[in-house]
């Protein structure tokens, strides 16, 4: 495609482009919103099965009416999707099969029936059948004005139902028992949400196709979940991610007509999800990595400070300058770790460097006492309240000393009665 075409596409200069872009964006945004609930209710794979299961309905609608009317397709798709969903739930409830088996079975059997009908239509040589196969992988470029009306109407219907009952849907998505206890009509809400999912899937297959439709429910929701804990913001983000993917799909469908749209929409959505998984604050990989490094460094710093205190205690001279090699003799640090820890402590002004020796500053002295105090308080607590032997308490205290908060420290101090010595008969430094 030429750059002129590209500009035409971006500026939506051709009416046909506008149609395709509007159609894909509406469908993908709406599906992503519905998908948030599917995702939160941990029914992502049920969504997958439903999307495969609408195929026989689409084909039957064509066989019975003999025309390619989007409304008939929609009705057929909703009926067969609901049937598959109800059978899945019935099988699971009657404990004839486990949920995962019921899902996989309905998915493949309904899809098989759909394929039988589709191939039998194709082989019968019905001239107007061309285009039914676009329901398999989606073809945004073939969206017509009539389709857009149906999409817009469906999306408006689905979204308004969601926003009217948002509180109820949120309640059943997070905690069904809680929703029952505060008086929500849970059975109705559950049914409504299932129906909305089937409806969204039945419309969405026009752009993405039945095979990859489930990705449009799962992937934007998953990406949005990485960024936020608030459901409203999650719905908004998922819609945005869905729309972005839809836009890309429309672009591909426009520039390479032979390409199916569905896979490209899915690739775009997965790309957004991957970026979210790496960069999202708190839950992202980078954030997790920084958090872990912060914790390791904190542990390292505190262990070194504690060492200074213990050496001073042993030799009886407080704030005695110590050589770096001596530090290694007292505790097994690797050389590079020790260097890193000392540098970090120096930056915080807990220790100072003087004539090739290290010395605690006043600030460092206070911090070192605090850590040793936590360590010994915890040892005493383990011995008195969990009846552990005094030679078994050290390792646990090594871990706990880094995480005990001032509040817990005060509590420990109180229930142990302001103790002076720990189980090894060493002095607990006073606060």
């Amino acid at each position, binding site marked *: 495609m030429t750059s002129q075409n590209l500009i035409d596409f971006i500026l939506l200069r051709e009416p046909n482009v506008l149609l395709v872009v509007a159609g894909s964006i509406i469908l993908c945004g709406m599906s992503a919103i519905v998908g948030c609930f599917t995702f939160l209710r941990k029914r992502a794979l049920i969504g997958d099965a439903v999307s495969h299961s609408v195929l026989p309905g689409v084909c039957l609608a064509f066989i019975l009416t003999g025309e390619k009317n989007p409304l008939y397709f929609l009705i057929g798709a909703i009926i067969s999707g609901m049937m598959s969903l109800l059978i899945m739930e019935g099988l699971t409830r009657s404990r004839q099969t486990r949920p995962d088996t019921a899902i996989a079975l309905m998915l493949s059997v309904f899809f098989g029936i759909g394929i*039988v009908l589709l*191939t039998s239509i194709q082989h019968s040589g019905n001239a107007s059948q061309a285009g039914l196969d676009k329901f398999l992988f989606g073809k945004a470029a073939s969206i017509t004005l009539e389709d857009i009306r149906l999409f817009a109407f469906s999306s408006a219907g689905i979204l308004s139902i969601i926003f009217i009952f948002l509180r109820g849907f949120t309640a059943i998505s997070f905690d069904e028992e809680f929703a029952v206890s505060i008086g929500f009509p849970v059975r109705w809400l559950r049914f409504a949400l299932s129906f909305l999912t089937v409806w969204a899937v039945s419309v969405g297959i026009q752009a993405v196709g039945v095979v990859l439709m489930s990705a449009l429910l799962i992937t934007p929701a998953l990406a949005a979940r990485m960024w936020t804990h608030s459901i409203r913001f999650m719905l908004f983000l998922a819609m945005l991610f869905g729309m972005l993917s839809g836009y890309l799909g429309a672009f591909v469908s426009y520039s390479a007509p032979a390409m199916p749209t569905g896979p490209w929409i899915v690739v775009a959505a997965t790309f957004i999800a991957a970026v979210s998984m790496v960069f999202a604050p708190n839950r992202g990989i980078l954030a997790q990595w920084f958090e872990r490094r912060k914790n390791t460094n904190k542990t390292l710093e505190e262990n070194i400070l504690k060492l200074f205190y213990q050496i001073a205690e042993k030799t009886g001279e407080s704030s005695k300058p110590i050589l770096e090699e001596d530090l290694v003799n007292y505790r097994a640090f690797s050389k590079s770790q020790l260097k890193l820890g000392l540098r970090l402590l120096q930056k915080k002004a807990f220790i100072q460097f003087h004539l090739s020796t290290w010395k605690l500053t006043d600030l460092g002295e206070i911090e070192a006492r605090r850590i040793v105090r936590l360590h010994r308080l915890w040892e005493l607590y383990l011995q008195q309240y969990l009846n552990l032997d005094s030679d078994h308490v050290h390792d646990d205290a090594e871990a706990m000393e880094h995480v005990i908060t001032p509040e817990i420290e005060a509590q420990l101090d109180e229930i142990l009665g302001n103790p002076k010595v720990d189980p090894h008969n060493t002095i607990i430094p006073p606060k």
Partner: protein
Amino acid sequence: MTINDFWIVLTASLISLCCVIPGTFLVLRRMAMFGDAISHAVLPGLVVAYLLSGSRESFIMLPGAAATGLLVTFLIEWIQKRMRIQNDAAIGLVYTFLFAVGVILVSAYAAQTDLDQECVLYGEIAYVPFDLIMNDAGFSLGPRQVWIAGSLFLALILVLLISYRALYITTFDAGYATALGISVAFWHYVLMGMVSMVTVVSFESVGAVLVIALLIGPPATAALFAKRLPFLLVLASVIGILSCIGGYYLAVWWNASIAGAISMMIGILFGLGLLIRKLISHP
């Protein structure tokens, strides 16, 4: 029944027998959807293998397929643990992406790979009798697919015989298996490798979606009746073969996709199974 009918039914039955072995364990381990995930996810690997080797010889692809399956399993578990995402969403994310990439590759290189988008979904088992193996003298030794599925079946039987005890114990009581020193994780990956190989071999014939019916359907139907593992495996095999025979004639009658009709037959037999069970329990 002409010879072509025979070859098609034989191929389908062999594939279904291959599917029953890992499929039974998937059903028992409540991991049916891993079959769905792997059968979709091997597609990009297959296309790349076609493009690189220029051949459709399944034997070349088996190791690659097993590796892809293990990679998918690993990726799903990694996302689940590391990103704290629930299992179903992790499965959905990974396999839809890989399948999408596969379909894009198929569309882009359709001419080189002899594959088209629809074949990916429901296979071309009707072409099996035309792809024959010839010996040096020019005599036909039967369709290639029969040989491939047949040897895979023998290999799977061998694996099953060798590892029956380990698979049995890790399936029913993972804690006990660990206590005996049997690695649950190792056998989990062995099973996933088996699923991948079965998927790849059946890909050309029945496609990515319908192989799930063959993997899960017969064991699920058999599980309505069988209470012991050996009987479950045998009954599932019988149901699988019956579905293939019934499905084939259904497809011929309606002039429709054979693989689709086999899945439909699997669904019908499952429904029949439910009915019979109901009659047995409430006469």
